[in-house]
């Protein structure tokens, strides 16, 4: 009788532990998915803003066709990389960041641009979108790290193996991207 109670107690405790670990894994996986969709929203927002920016500055910067073309091409490449997983997408988006940075650097030479209200507000939107991408990436990578750690550590690795939780990829930042982007026209 006592043995039976002990066995039942052990089973109950183990069941509760499994349920808790499983729920923790699900919660963290959802957080990773949610963080990824935040990055996605901001990347799409940037893709939408760039044609407007190119349109707004092209009359001022007619001598900078090459720079503008680079931005347009990088945008097209980034849009099509969207379906190829975090690693490929990160590479394409980083190239886009680079091309935008050189566009803003060149824009410094055109004082007329600084007076254009439309360009200024596009500039603010792109600056914030850049920031949001990097903050969303920061949150995503932190979430992935916690999730991957849980998958590897005992005892949650047992549950992860049982229910097919697999580790996620990080969204890598290129080296130069770790500097704070400075794109102020003011």
């Amino acid at each position: 009788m006592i043995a039976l109670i002990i066995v039942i107690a052990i089973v109950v405790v183990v069941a509760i532990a499994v349920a808790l670990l499983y729920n923790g894994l699900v919660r963290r996986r959802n957080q990773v998915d949610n963080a990824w969709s935040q990055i996605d929203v901001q990347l799409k927002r940037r893709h939408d803003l760039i044609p407007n920016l190119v349109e707004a500055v092209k009359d001022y910067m007619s001598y900078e066709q090459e720079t503008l073309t680079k931005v347009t091409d990088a945008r097209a490449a980034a849009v099509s990389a969207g379906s190829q997983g975090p690693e490929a997408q990160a590479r394409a988006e980083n190239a886009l960041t680079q091309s935008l940075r050189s566009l803003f650097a060149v824009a410094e030479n055109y004082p007329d641009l600084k007076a254009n209200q439309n360009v200024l507000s596009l500039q603010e939107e792109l600056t914030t979108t850049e920031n949001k991408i990097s903050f969303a990436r920061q949150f995503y990578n932190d979430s992935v790290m916690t999730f991957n750690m849980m998958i590897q550590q005992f005892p949650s690795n047992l549950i992860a193996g049982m229910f097919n939780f697999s580790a996620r990829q990080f969204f890598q930042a290129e080296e130069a991207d770790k500097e704070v982007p400075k794109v102020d026209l003011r």
Partner: protein
Amino acid sequence: MYEQITRNKRDSWFLIIVLIVVLCGLGLVIGLAWFGSRTGAIGFLGVFGIVAIVWSLIGYYAGAGMVLAASGARKITHDQAPELWNVVDEMRIAGGLPMPDVYIIDDPAPNAFATGRDPQHASVAVTRGLLDELNRDELQGVLAHEMSHVRNYDIRFATLVGILVGVIALVADIFIRGTFWGGGRRSEGGGNAIFFVLAIVLALLAPLAAYIVQFAISRHREYLADASGVELTRNPLGLAHALEKIAADPRPLRVANRATAHLYIANPLKNKKAKESAGLFDTHPPIQKRIAILLAMAHDTGEPAEAPQA
């Protein structure tokens, strides 16, 4: 992070229960002092207990709205202040939080606060002066601090505690006034002199103790929000420079008062004496100490540390 949030939620409940018990105890003793009978005392205890619970519920659901209204805060949309809106959006993304409501207070003194009951029902408010004086990095630092309060559930705690401490002070005040206006005479018939003295002592001490606890916790949370704000921006200098500018501004915030002071990022009442250490009745840690800690963090991460300018 999760551990900190869990502890904060538990602490909130613990403190609220303690404050309700204090309030009930106050009711019991006041009841004994005024009526001297068991029914009177239990009646008072019941009334106080109900008042405390009802008032907590009102505070929980409507406290944020009351605080915002009392501060003269005006809700804005993206187009009314794009940079402020965007910076708030950036910081809530960094914290993995939903977008809070954004408010502006038309006052030239630079300051900011967050309120609400959880991240889904949160608001941040900044003054016009803050927007005018800070650059984007500094604004980011301040809003990261505020979003940390949101993420850590400090906002729920601060709003509730503020309201309960207010009730204790109010009740004690009513008792002392009531005693002078005739409660004393009534007690000559039924009241017990010992309980009467006890009630006066308690009525004087309870609000004092409540304030001390509230302020101590509030000070501790400011340090914590500074640190976890930097975790969001990864840039301690932004907040450090923002605090320097806020410290250098001599204007007190007109719309702040004793009840809302502890919500702000820096003491809005600006009692003039600059001190090395915090007193029992300070709602905020010394701002120079906070700046020094942030500059030390910047030094550790390899960024050039600067001497405080203020």
